[in-house]
């Protein structure tokens, strides 16, 4: 590896670019926020290009380079992203060091999912908001009340931004006289600054919410209009409503440009259409891939204060990243033994951080690699290793202890620090960057070498910094337990437990269980 710059390898490139890292920033969309980010970055000596979608309107700004188009192709890593941008007139190829996405997801109609046909009194949520904002009126009724039925989070899950849209419509309808709004829903999404209070305000005002666990409402249409039939979830009685207007929330999907960014991160199906997993492991505007940042709408955050904070934060993250130098020794990150590699590309498809590229052979970008070890374990040829790990964790003083506790350095290790030494007396602690680095074979090897019990402590679901590292670990523990059973050993001596830094009792529980198991047999 010495002398070779592995900082820039491209998945689809035919040649390997060995230039200096670029510090230019590509900003996707975001209306005025995208342009504000460009301005803040400029004040910090970063040039940027704001890419606006072909049909999007944007405020003119002479200080910022604005391109109207979409991403046709993208590859590369932090400091060296190769991007093809298709504009109305041509396809241009550019190099960027960092990518900031500020685009909201696209919305597609859900009306078809309800098996009804579109008519004058049926709207999509964003459509209805636009209709009201552009001066649209509600139908008048001389005799009695008007009824609006909203459908939210049914036939596919919806998110906070859509609920915010719904609540802002309710805000607007507040002044209407003799109007009753009904919301048919599964789960309301109120986790945004102030949204919960606004929801409670409207409930207090008299908006009625029907929360279904199953048995969704059925809509029947005839020439006289639509009738909603449902079992009232709390009363258990059959009810019907003939609404004057029906409003449906929409399915979210990434925009075309955002989709190509998501394609760079193999773990993205777990959090698409957003660019950031909904997890405390991802602070601020971080995404699983180095050099790619998610701002505001592209990470599912829409309130003004968070948006402003993100605009400031992204500059700090880029400044920090620009000072990072790759460690070319290959220590602490995964590296491929090209003699063993058979080009099956399993690593490429599985790396949660999109840290692996391919130019005639797989290459791991040292700045993007988080040493989670998912590729190390999944490589069918055993061609990948993380060099500095393994050496530091094994100490002769503790390796004779009968219980092996394999912990994730991000969660389990902090939990272990809270456990008293007495409980840990018989326990050897093996810390990994991620439980994803645990293989079934290594677990079985512990038993071969005389371990009394083995505990793997990964993170809780949705809390894994490598998205599915912990899930893979749990699966491998299950597989190893099966092998133990076939070999005539007690599978209960092997245990997977989910922990966080503040749940040491879960580790203690697992240790006690194993101790009890080993002693009583």
């Amino acid at each position: 590896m010495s002398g070779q710059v592995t900082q820039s390898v491209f998945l689809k490139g035919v040649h390997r670019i060995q230039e200096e890292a670029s510090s230019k920033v590509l900003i996707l969309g975001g209306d005025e926020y995208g342009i504000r980010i460009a301005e803040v970055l400029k004040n910090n000596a970063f040039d940027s290009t704001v890419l606006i979608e072909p049909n999007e309107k944007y405020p003119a700004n002479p200080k910022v380079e604005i391109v109207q188009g979409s991403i046709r192709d993208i590859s590369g890593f932090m400091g060296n992203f190769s991007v093809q941008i298709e504009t109305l007139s041509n396809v241009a190829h550019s190099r960027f060091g960092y990518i900031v996405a500020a685009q909201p997801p696209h919305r597609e109609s859900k009306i078809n999912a309800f098996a009804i046909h579109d008519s004058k009194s049926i709207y999509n949520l964003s459509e209805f908001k636009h209709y009201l904002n552009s001066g649209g009126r509600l139908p008048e009724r001389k005799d009695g009340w008007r009824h609006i039925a909203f459908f939210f989070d049914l036939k596919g899950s919806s998110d906070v931004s859509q609920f915010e849209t719904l609540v802002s419509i309710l805000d607007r309808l507040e002044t209407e006289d003799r109007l009753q709004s009904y919301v048919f829903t599964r789960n309301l999404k109120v986790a945004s600054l102030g949204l919960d209070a606004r929801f409670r305000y409207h409930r207090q005002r008299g908006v009625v919410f029907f929360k279904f666990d199953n048995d969704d409402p059925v809509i029947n249409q005839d020439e006289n209009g639509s009738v909603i039939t449902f079992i009232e979830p709390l009363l258990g009685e059959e009810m019907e409503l003939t609404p004057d207007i029906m409003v449906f929330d929409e399915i979210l999907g990434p925009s075309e440009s955002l989709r190509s960014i998501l394609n760079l991160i193999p773990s993205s199906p777990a959090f698409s259409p957003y660019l950031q997993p909904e997890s405390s492991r991802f602070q601020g505007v971080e995404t699983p891939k180095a050099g790619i940042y998610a701002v505001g709408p592209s990470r599912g955050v829409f309130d003004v204060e968070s948006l402003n904070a993100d605009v400031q934060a992204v500059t700090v993250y880029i400044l920090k990243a620009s000072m990072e130098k790759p460690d070319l020794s290959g220590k602490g990150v995964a590296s491929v033994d090209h003699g063993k590699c058979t080009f099956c590309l399993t690593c490429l498809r599985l790396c949660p951080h999109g840290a692996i590229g391919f130019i005639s052979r797989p290459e791991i970008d040292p700045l993007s690699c988080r040493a989670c070890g998912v590729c190390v374990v999944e490589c069918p040829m055993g061609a990948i290793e993380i060099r500095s790990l393994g050496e530091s964790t094994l100490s002769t003083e503790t390796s004779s202890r009968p219980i092996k506790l394999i912990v994730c350095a991000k969660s389990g290790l902090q939990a272990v620090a809270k456990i008293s030494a007495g409980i840990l007396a018989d326990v050897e602690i093996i810390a990994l960057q991620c439980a994803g680095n645990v293989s079934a074979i290594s677990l079985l090897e512990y038993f071969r070498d005389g371990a009394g019990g083995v505990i793997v402590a990964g993170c809780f679901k949705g809390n894994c910094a490598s998205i599915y590292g912990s899930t893979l670990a749990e699966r491998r523990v299950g597989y190893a337990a099966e092998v133990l059973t076939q070999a005539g050993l007690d599978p209960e001596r092997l245990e997977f437990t989910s922990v966080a830094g503040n749940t040491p009792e879960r580790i203690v529980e697992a240790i006690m269980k194993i101790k009890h198991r080993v002693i009583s047999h």
Partner: protein
Amino acid sequence: MPKINLNELDPEFKHRVAEQPGGEGLKACFACKACTAACPIQPIDKRYDPRKIIRMALLGMKKQVLESDFIWLCSSCYGCQEVCPQNVRFTEVMYAIKNLAAQEACIPPGLTAQRSLLKKHGRLYEVGEFENEKRLKMGLPPIIEHAEDFDVILPDQTVESDRGHSSTSHNS
């Protein structure tokens, strides 16, 4: 059971209940069922379910609530009020609902009978010569009925005592 048509219900009803003294908390209910769990009446008579009564009120089922006989089953033990996390103050809400029912002349016959006793005798039990003779033997002064005060606070009205009621006998 026939379908309940939301278009025929009264969206104003929940606001009317909430306007009554004590009814203010109604719309804060998030249906956790703590009230129903705490209610001593509910295990005896399933029709009296605080959570369902709130839901019916919120949905505007005015007729079904006010003309029901189960709203009069509340024992006013305040158990529901104690456990409510949303501070609905359901016992007070029940008073509000019962007041509205009275305004709509939906009172169970037992209560109407008590009212007329009060109006006529100034008390819930008539005190006649028999009782006063007994009192005299025990050295107690006789009770003289003063119905005139109650006559003032309970003016004449045409009480449709059995509107919406068929079988209630109510003793509290």
